[in-house]
C-alpha cells in the first residue's frame, strides 16, 4: 500500500525546520509575519471568517468547528479571555507536548492572532502541572517574543495589546475539561461547571472566554498565511487539515505523526508507525482516541481517520492518541487499567462517576485476581449502562468505554477468565 504523502507540515514544522523553537529561526521561516498581517490588515471578523472557511475543528477531542466557537463570543461583553488548553492528560496523548517543546512560537503566534480575533487582551496557557519544563520553557519564549515587541503592548503599532501568561495545573486529568480548567485557573479545585452558561458567554471570571487546544491554535498562523483553501487541500471535506497523532504501545515506531486526516488506521499503524513491534504477537486491539474512546480491532483497520468516520464506527478520533496493543495483553488487565485511570481521576462531584468507577474497578480487580464470579460480566454491563449518559461530565461516561468494548469484542476471553476460576 502506498504511503500517503504529507505535502508539508502544518503544526509539527519542527520536523522540517531545525531549531524552529528558537525565535530567530522561527522569524527567519516567516514567523510572526502572519500575526502582523492579521493585526494590521485584517478585521477580527475577517479572521474568524477565514478560520470558519478553513473548516478547522478543535483538536482537543470534540472536534467542534473553531471559527464557529469564536463567533459565539458576545461582542459587547468585556473583558474577554482566550484560554489555551495545554492540559494534555488523556492517556496515550502526547502531541501537545511536542508542539510546546519544539514549536512554541507557532503556538504563541496562533494565540496572538486568535486573541485578536475574539477581542481578548489576555490569554492564559493552562498547562498540566507535570509539564514543569514546558511551562518554564514557554515563559522564556514569551519573554523573548515580548522583548521583540511580538507580544505585549501596541503590537505592530496597531494599538492592540495582548499578554500571554502560563498557568500550571497541579495534577488532575479533569482539568482538561474546559470548565474544570477554568475553575482551576481561578484557583479552585478542578471540577466541571454546570452548563449553560457556556464559557463563550461566561467563562473565566464569568467573562466571555474561548478555550482552545494547543494544536488547534498552532494551526491558525498557517491558515492565515496560506488561506482556507490551502488548508482544505489537506484532509477530507468534513475533516480538513492534518492532525498530530500520538501512537504508542506495541508498534515499532511509537511517537507523534502529523497525518493528513482521512488516511486509514491500517496505513497509519503499518506504514507510518512501522507496524507491530513483535512479529509473533499480532494486533489484538486499538484504543484509537485516548483512553476515553471505544476500542477497535483488526476488522476496523480500513476505517479512515476522520471525526465522522470514527464516530460512525462508534468510537472517536478524540485527542488523536492511538494505543496499539498486541495479543500479549490480557483484556481484563487492560480494561482494569483504563478504569483505574478514570477512578483515580474522578473528581468526586457526581455520584455515578465517583461510585461507579470504583464499582467497575472492584469487579475488574476480582476477575483479574482470579476471583471472578458468575454474572460479573452482566454486572459490569449493567453498572456501565447505569453510568453512561448519567454523569455530570464526559469523564464518567468514558470509563464505560472499556467495559463495553471488552464485552463487545472479547466476551469469550472474559467468560473464560471467570470460568477458569470455577
Amino acid at each position, binding site marked *: 500500500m502506498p504511503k500517503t504523502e504529507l505535502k508539508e507540515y502544518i503544526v509539527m514544522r519542527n520536523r522540517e525546520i531545525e531549531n524552529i523553537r528558537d525565535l530567530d529561526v522561527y522569524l527567519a521561516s516567516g514567523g510572526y509575519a502572519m500575526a502582523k498581517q492579521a493585526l494590521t490588515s485584517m478585521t477580527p471578523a475577517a479572521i474568524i471568517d477565514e478560520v470558519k472557511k478553513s473548516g478547522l475543528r478543535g483538536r482537543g477531542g470534540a472536534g467542534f468547528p473553531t471559527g464557529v466557537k469564536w463567533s459565539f463570543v458576545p461582542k459587547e461583553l468585556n473583558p474577554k479571555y482566550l484560554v489555551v488548553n495545554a492540559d494534555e*492528560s488523556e492517556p496515550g496523548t502526547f502531541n501537545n507536548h511536542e508542539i510546546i517543546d519544539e514549536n512554541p512560537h507557532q503556538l504563541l503566534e496562533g494565540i496572538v492572532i486568535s486573541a485578536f480575533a475574539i477581542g481578548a487582551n489576555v490569554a492564559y496557557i493552562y498547562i498540566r502541572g507535570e509539564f514543569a519544563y514546558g511551562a*518554564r520553557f514557554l515563559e522564556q519564549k514569551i519573554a523573548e517574543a515580548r522583548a521583540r515587541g511580538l507580544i505585549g503592548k501596541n503590537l505592530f503599532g496597531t494599538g492592540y495589546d495582548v499578554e500571554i*501568561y502560563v*498557568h*500550571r495545573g*497541579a495534577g488532575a486529568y479533569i482539568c482538561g475539561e474546559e470548565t474544570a480548567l477554568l475553575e482551576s485557573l481561578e484557583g479552585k*479545585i478542578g471540577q466541571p461547571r454546570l452548563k449553560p452558561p457556556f464559557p463563550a458567554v461566561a467563562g473565566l471570571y464569568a467573562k466571555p472566554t474561548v478555550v482552545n487546544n494547543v494544536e488547534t491554535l498552532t494551526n491558525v498562523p498557517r491558515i492565515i498565511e496560506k488561506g482556507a483553501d490551502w488548508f482544505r487541500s489537506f484532509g477530507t471535506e468534513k475533516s480538513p487539515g492534518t492532525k498530530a497523532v500520538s501512537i504508542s*504501545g506495541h508498534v515499532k515506531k511509537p511517537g507523534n505523526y502529523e497525518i493528513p486526516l482521512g488516511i486509514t488506521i491500517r496505513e497509519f499503524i503499518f506504514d507510518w508507525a512501522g507496524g507491530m513491534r513483535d512479529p509473533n504477537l499480532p494486533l489484538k486491539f486499538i484504543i484509537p482516541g485516548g483512553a476515553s474512546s471505544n476500542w477497535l480491532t483488526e476488522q476496523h483497520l480500513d476505517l479512515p481517520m476522520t471525526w465522522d468516520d470514527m464516530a460512525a464506527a462508534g468510537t472517536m478520533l478524540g485527542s488523536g492518541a492511538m*494505543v496499539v496493543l498486541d495479543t500479549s495483553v490480557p483484556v481484563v488487565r487492560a480494561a482494569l487499567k483504563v478504569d483505574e485511570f478514570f477512578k483515580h481521576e474522578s473528581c468526586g462531584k457526581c455520584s455515578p462517576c465517583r461510585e461507579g468507577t470504583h464499582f467497575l474497578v472492584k469487579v475488574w480487580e476480582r476477575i483479574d485476581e482470579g476471583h471472578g464470579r458468575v454474572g460479573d460480566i452482566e454486572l459490569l454491563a449493567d453498572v456501565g449502562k447505569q453510568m453512561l449518559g448519567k454523569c455530570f461530565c464526559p469523564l464518567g461516561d468514558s470509563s464505560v468505554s472499556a467495559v463495553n468494548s471488552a464485552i463487545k469484542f472479547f466476551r469469550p476471553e472474559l467468560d473464560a477468565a471467570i470460568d477458569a476460576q470455577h
Partner: protein
Amino acid sequence: MLYEQHKAEIDEILARYPVDRKRSALLPLLYLAQDVYGRLDRDSIREVAEILDLPYTDVFEVVGFYTLFYNEEVGKVVLDVCDDVPCCFCGAEELVADLENRLGIKAGETTKDKVFTLRRVKCIAACDQAPVLQANLEFHNRVLPDKVEAMLAKLRNDVESGKPVSISGRLAER
C-alpha cells in the same frame, strides 16, 4: 515569611491575574511554598491563605485535590513512574519493581534517608518513551533496566552536592 522572602516572585505571580482575582495565584503560590518548606503542612497552607486573603478551608481543599501538592512528607526527589495504559504493557511494571528493589521501599513510600519518594502515577504524556518517569517533574525517557542505576546515582549526587532542588518543578530543565 514566605511573602517577605519571595516578594519579587510572588508579586510577579500576582501581576498575572486581575487585581480582584488574586485567588488565581493559588496554585503557583502553593508550588512556591511547597518548594520552600519541602511540603505543604498546615502552617504553610495557612500562610498561603493569608497572602491571598482566602479562607483556610478553601486552600486545604485545593491542596487535597491535586496530586502534585504533597501534604505528607516527601523526599528531596519525587520519582513518578507512569504505570498507565500503555506504559504498563511496555515495561512500567518492571521499572517500578526495579526501583522498589533498589530503593528498598514500596511505591508510595519515602526512603529512610529522605532522598527519594517513589510513586506510581497516571499518564504523563510521554507514552512513546515508555518506560518513563519524572524525577521532580523532569522527564527521564526509556528508563530501561541498564539505565536505572546511573540515573539514581546522578539524582542522589545532585541532592548531596547541594544543587538546588525543587520538588514542585519550578526549576525544571530539560
